[in-house]
């Protein structure tokens, strides 16, 4: 999660950047000592999911309300592979992620034909279709009961302990995060950001905007699939909850809470929501939708920069001599909440 700061602080002494990266990795390494290990793994999964989602929302300007289809679809496929093949769980998760990407191709192909609010409604509707299929096809998915007893197979290792499993899952998540980061910083990522900011101009320059959108949509689905597959293995089951529309909403709230377009803010948002829900359910309060909804309302009304956006904003206020932001360090541009001048998600007022 520190990689972004590294770039944010490009131009500052290298030791700060590497220091922050080291701090992030250190935090990831000690997390299961600090938290209940299954919760720590949940944070990894949801964190990767939210980053994958922000890849689409913050860096391509597409609000998908159907990402549960990819998270949950992969959870089911991962579970099926793990249950029936006896392959190592890495292979099962990879298979789930590939399935999620394959599922994203037709959905994305149709959805990128519309933008803005229509894109959100279309992805939501197709995700609901996936939900119904999962519900109806009970011979394969277990219907209401879901898939149970998904094993954590890894030859030569005993992963039954949640603590050990955290460290088995961590490399997958780090690879996923690195991939997301790489996509954002690549020439490809520059084009998707340009499509977000000025689609007509990108088309005029000869880029096929729809093809770029579909590619980033599929990449986001693949990473969401990695996260969903790990989540299924972590819990040992895949249920309808994973493909439910509230799950799509939950990843949106994590990203918005962390700060749209900040990529790593999504990790913070995910950690905050997972911790909050865990804490509330320990306290006997089961109304998680109420919490998600409440956070939605408060963040959207009052706190549109999100946690990460606000933090970097404050940092910059404290250090007025800092070099100006690179224009393509897109993190802030969509986060100038309440403004009317910038581009991106916030300001495209109609």
């Amino acid at each position, binding site marked *: 999660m520190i990689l972004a700061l590294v770039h944010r602080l490009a131009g500052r002494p290298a030791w700060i950047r590497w220091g922050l990266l080291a701090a992030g990795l250190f935090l990831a390494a000690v997390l299961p000592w600090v938290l209940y290990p299954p919760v720590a793994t949940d944070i990894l999964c949801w964190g990767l999911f939210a980053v994958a989602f922000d890849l689409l929302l913050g860096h391509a300007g597409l609000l998908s309300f159907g990402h549960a289809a990819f998270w949950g679809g992969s959870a089911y496929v991962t579970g099926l592979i793990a249950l029936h093949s006896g392959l190592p769980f890495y292979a099962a998760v990879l298979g789930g992620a590939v399935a999620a990407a394959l599922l994203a191709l037709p959905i994305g192909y149709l959805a990128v034909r519309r933008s803005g609010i229509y894109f959100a409604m279309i992805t939501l509707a197709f995700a609901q279709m996936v939900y119904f299929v999962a519900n109806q096809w009970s011979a394969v998915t277990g219907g209401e009961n879901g898939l149970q007893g998904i094993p954590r197979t890894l030859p030569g290792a005993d992963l039954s302990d949640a603590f050990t499993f955290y460290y088995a899952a961590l490399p997958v998540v780090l690879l996923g995060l690195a991939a997301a980061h790489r996509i954002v910083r690549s020439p490809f990522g520059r084009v998707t950001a340009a499509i977000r900011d000025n689609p007509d101009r990108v088309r005029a320059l000869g880029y096929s905007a729809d093809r770029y959108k579909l590619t980033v949509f599929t990449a986001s689905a693949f990473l969401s699939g990695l996260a969903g597959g790990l989540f299924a293995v972590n819990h040992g089951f895949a249920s309808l909850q994973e493909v439910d529309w*509230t799950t799509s909403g939950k990843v949106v709230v994590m990203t918005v809470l962390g700060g749209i377009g900040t990529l790593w803010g999504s990790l913070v948002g995910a950690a905050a929501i997972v911790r909050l829900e865990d804490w509330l359910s320990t306290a006997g309060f089961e109304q998680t939708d109420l919490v998600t*909804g409440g956070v939605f309302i408060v963040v959207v009304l009052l706190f549109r920069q999100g946690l990460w956006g606000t933090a970097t904003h404050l940092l910059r206020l404290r250090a007025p001599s800092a070099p100006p932001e690179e224009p393509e360090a897109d993190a802030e541009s969509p986060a100038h909440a309440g403004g009317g001048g910038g581009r991106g998600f916030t300001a495209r007022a109609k």
Partner: protein
Amino acid sequence: MTSFLQQLFNGLVSGSFYALLALGLAVIFGMLRVVNFAHGALYMLGAFGAVVLGDDAGLGFWWALLLVPAALAVAGMAMERLLVQRLTALDPLYNFLLTFGIALVCQDLLRMKYGSHSRPYDRAPFGGTVDLGLFDYPRYQVFVLAVSVVVCVAVWLLLTRTRIGTVVRASTERPELTRAFGIDTRRWVTPVFGFGVALAGLAGVLAAPMRAVNSDMGADLIITVFAVVVIGGLGSVFGSVVAGFAIGMIQALGNLYVPVLSQTSVYLLMAVVLLVRPAGLFGKEEHA
């Protein structure tokens, strides 16, 4: 043949709900460019309103049909004034997120208070069947269809034949120009939002005697209605209503002939429409 016609009629009845909800969504979208995610939750509140009025106040169906939409209209106007209005200057997606949050909160609050099982409502104004020539049909269902058609036609006339409708349409299509004529377009935003919400409440009350009343009833429906308005074209009030009825019928026929597709047919239809006419059957191409 009889079962075909009967199924078609079932479709028209469930299409009545799609049409009423799509109509409210389209009216609100036209005026504010906001897609109200909470529309399903407000429909659910309408149904609960009828149940609670019946159980706690002993008021019958007709009272509910009058009071609940009116109360929800007031609630909707308050929601617009206090929350939605703060975000209208921003990307419309923010209001989508806001109303999504409101939907989740309403749903969970209801679940907290009443649990997640369905509540019975036995105050239907009339039971029995009516002879439709080829088959007998529950009288109440015929009534629902009639109300829905009448309301949709009335709103259509209101929008096209009255001065209020002219002003609303003008503020929808050319807000700057309308303001230049000295008409305060903002004055109409709140009432129109309230009106759209009242339509959702009306649909909810109508649903109470014939559908399971529980906290999830709105969420399931609203996603289908989103597919309906994508098919019909959200910018078009006419298209949304026609698509509502049409999809009700297609779904019902799907139930009869391809039961496997009963729940997914509407989404497959949406996929086809997106392939052939991305703007929706009655929509205009626009970059929102």
